[in-house]
Each structure stands twice: as C-alpha cells, then as structure tokens.
C-alpha cells in the first residue's frame, strides 16, 4: 500500500490527505476544480506550518509531506493507486456517480472506500462492477487527532478487502474497528442516547440544560456534557445524523429526534458557530 487516492478535499478529505502524507504515502488528491484543490493545499500548508511553529513537526518532515501530495482534477490520474478513499458531500447519487467513474479507472485489485457516515455501503458498492472490493472507511473529525477508523463491511465486501483495509488503517497510524453495514455504524448509533435522551430529559422537565451537563461530567466522567457537545458539533449536523439513523431503522422510537433541537435549527441557533445554541457564546 504505497499510493492512495483521496477524492474530495473538504474538512474530512484534506484531513485524510494530511495523515496519509505524513505517514509517508504518496497521495493523489482529487478535487472538482483547480481553485478548490489549490485552496485545500494552501490550508494544509498553513496547518503543517502551525505544527512546525509549535515544535510538533520538523520543517523537513512538513516539506516532505507536502511533496508527497499531487493535486488533480481528473479521475484518470487515479489509475495507479492502491486504494481510493472518497470524501465528497453526503449525497447518495453524487457518491454513486463518483464510484461508477473511478471503478472503471483504477486497477482491479485497488480498494474502493467511502468515508460516508450515514449512507449504506452496500448501496454505494452496487454502483460498481466489483462490489467485493468496496468498503466503508469512516474517519472522525478532526482526522489528524482522532485515532479511530470504522471499517464497514458491505453486504458483498470480500474478506481480502477487509484484510487489506486493516493494513491501510494501520499504515495510517490509526486504530481500526469493524462493523457490518448498519445505520450509524458503531459510534453514531451507540452514542445516540447521549444526545437524544438528554433532549428527552430536558423536554420532560426532569432537569435543566446546565444540570444535565453538570451531572454527565461530574457524575459520569464525560469530558463534555451533551448540550455543550451538541453546540460544538452543530445542532444542524447533530439533528441531521439523528434523523438519518431514525430513518435508517424505519422509525424505531429509540432514535426518534427531538423537536426541541429541530426548533433550534429552524431558529438558526446552531451552536458555537452561530454563537447561540443551548448556550450563548460571546467569546
């Protein structure tokens, strides 16, 4: 595993590019136009520069990492890679279209992976001629700091694909866990009650936002309370994830979203990024 293709250089994509390049992989970074590719690379250059200034990265290592990244706007340049990780926006048809094209270009033994957090891996794999080499590689934000990658096994993913993916994750310096293609995979599903039940307790009048956060931190040892965390993640993002998982399980009441959070989204109170959510932020 020496050459990696990354499609989409948004927050997640560029994070994956950074980690791979720092770990010594050659990276072909695919964006839709030159302007976006340039912006993403400039952003990464600044990130690495900050690491150098803080003494967390040697200047020559930063230069070497940047030297391993080759930006492109043409899928044809992905032909030699050993694996492709797709990180374009969470839109089933958009992703299926990307994979339909890439499937025809890369070598038959190359891995095809999606970083989706909410779409079915099986549905994406079905857009390709070789669904057995397709899988999910779900990274966490911010990618350079979060050690976890969920390896998602689609309905038709081959054993050899999982084994190769484990090697890739290890090569990236991350810890792999494996999960079947189920809505929310592991983290987003198991963590749902942390947000959802906190919202329910609030809505039922059991305790206030401040009290619930305090109990979870001091009583449970969680680093952040549920409401602080929802404000950090963004209520729009958190509400969307809950809604997708609720739909993914065909309306199982365990995952039912909260209208309280929906009202915040409708009011534009998205959390820290709008300076208002469950709390207000003045900075």
């Amino acid at each position, binding site marked *: 595993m020496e050459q990696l293709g990354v499609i989409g250089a948004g927050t997640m994509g560029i994070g994956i590019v950074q980690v791979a390049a720092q770990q010594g992989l050659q990276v072909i970074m695919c964006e839709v136009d030159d302007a976006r590719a340039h912006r993403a690379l400039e952003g990464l250059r600044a990130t690495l520069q900050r690491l150098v200034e803080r003494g967390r990265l040697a200047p020559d290592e930063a230069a070497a990492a940047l030297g391993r990244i080759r930006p492109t706007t043409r899928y044809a340049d992905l032909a030699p890679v050993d694996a492709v990780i797709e990180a374009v926006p969470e839109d089933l048809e958009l992703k299926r279209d990307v994979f339909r094209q890439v499937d025809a270009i890369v070598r038959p033994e190359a891995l095809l992976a999606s970083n989706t957090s909410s779409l079915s891996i099986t549905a994406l794999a079905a857009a390709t001629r070789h669904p057995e080499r397709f899988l999910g590689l779900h990274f966490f934000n911010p990618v350079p700091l979060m050690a976890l990658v969920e390896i998602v096994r689609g309905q038709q993913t081959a054993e050899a694909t999982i084994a190769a993916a484990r090697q890739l994750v290890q090569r990236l310096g991350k810890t792999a866990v494996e999960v079947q293609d189920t809505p929310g995979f592991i983290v987003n599903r198991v963590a749902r*009650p942390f947000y959802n039940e906190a919202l329910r307790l609030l809505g039922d009048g059991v305790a206030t936002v401040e009290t619930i956060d305090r109990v979870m931190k001091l009583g449970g040892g969680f680093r952040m309370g549920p409401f602080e965390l929802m404000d950090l993640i963004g209520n729009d993002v958190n509400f969307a994830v809950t809604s997708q998982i609720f739909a993914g399980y065909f309306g199982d009441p365990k995952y039912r979203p909260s209208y309280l959070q929906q009202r915040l989204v409708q009011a534009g109170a998205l959390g820290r990024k709008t300076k208002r959510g469950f709390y207000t932020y003045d900075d």
Partner: protein
Amino acid sequence: MTTDAGPVLVVGDPPLAEELAALLREAGRPLTYCPVAPARAGAELPEADALARAAQGAALALETTVWPFERKRALVAALDAALPPTAVLASLCAAQSTSEIASWTTRPQQVVGFSVVPPLSASQLVEVAPGLDTAEAAAAAVERLFAAAGRETARVRDDAGLVLARILCLIINEAAAMVMEGVASARDIDTALRLGANYPRGPLEWADLIGIDFVYAVLYGLQLEQGEDRYRPCPLLRKMVLAGRLGRKVGRGFFTYAQA
C-alpha cells in the same frame, strides 16, 4: 438527634452499599452498615431482628438495592417499619421514581430519592430527587450528607433513572443490542466509543463495572414507567442477568475477569 449528626444506616448490596458506607465513615458519621444477601433468586432480606436493631436510633437510612424489584420493595417496607418515625429514608431511585418508592412506606414526606452509578470512586456527584410529597428539609438533609462526604449534588426531578443512570444505561443498551445482533464485537464497540467519542470507558466494560443487573433494572424500570418501546431492555441483558453474568463482581459479564 438531628439528621445532620445522627447515626446513619446503610443497607444494600456490595459493592455499592459498601462503597457508600466507607465514604460516609471517612466523613466521620456514626454509621451502621447492614449488607443484604446477593441478588440471586430466593435471597433473603436481613433478618427482621437484625434490621430492627440496626435501624434503632438511626437519623437517616440509605437504601441502595435495585434488583429484583420485589426485594427492594420488601426491604423499603421493612426499613419503614423499623426506623424511628422522624428518620429520613433515602433510597436509590435507579429504576423507580421517588414517589413510587415513597408509596411503599408510611412516611412519604421523609423519603428522598438519590442516584449514583457505581463505582462511586469515579463519581464526584450525587443526584438528589425529592418525590411529589417529600419535605424540603428531608431532601436538604440528604444533600448535606453527601456534601459532608465531599460529593457535589444536583437536584433533579424524580423520574426513574434520574439523569446519569438513564442516559448511560440507554447507551449500554444500544451497545448490547449491537453485540446481540452480531454486527460488531464487544471489544470493538468499546474501542470505538473511547477513541471515536472520547468516552471515559467503553460502554460494555462500564456495564460490567456497574453490574448487568443494575443496568437491566434501570431499563426495565424506565420501560414500566414510560410505557415506551424506546426503553425496551435488550434481551441479551435479561439473559445475562438470568445466567448470573452480572459483570465484574462475579468475574463475568461482557468480558471475563480474574476473580479477586
């Protein structure tokens, strides 16, 4: 005799009751600890005589059993009969509301719900929940007791499970469901939540530490109180309770442990 300095009686199962007794003893309260037999089928309550002796002169009793529910109800009723009429009865309301527990006694004004999730050593806060008819003085006395033992308190309404146990046991229920469905391993689920969500512990090792019987009781109690499928305990948890795989305290739960 006042509730702030008078003798405290702690009644319940180890390890939680034992931990609570040790915590309060360190704070210098005169204290009697009355363990009850492990929560297996046919387990007996402490002998009525022993309980009556222990309860004599107590200003405040802490009752910490959770499961089985009939055993808790019988113990609370026995304590109510044995305690002086002025004594405060603080009961762990993990699976019932304080108001429900109070309805088993003749002293609803003196019954206060509280909740902690084992292990106590990892928790800096105790939730305190007065029932519908609880006197303010009784709730305040329980808060002062925990404050004197160096714990913060939070006042919340008395719905079953209060805040922490309710949220945490639902997280564990979801993790248990994934194990039951065979879609991820217990080890991977714990790793995922620690590394992917920064949890202080994986939910399943946490469940083993809390006790599978405790977790199951909270969920079952919530389901009874709320009447919703949302709180349905995962069948695997129920089987584990029936099979005695109660977690660390017996050496076996989602994981196995060398017996101490």
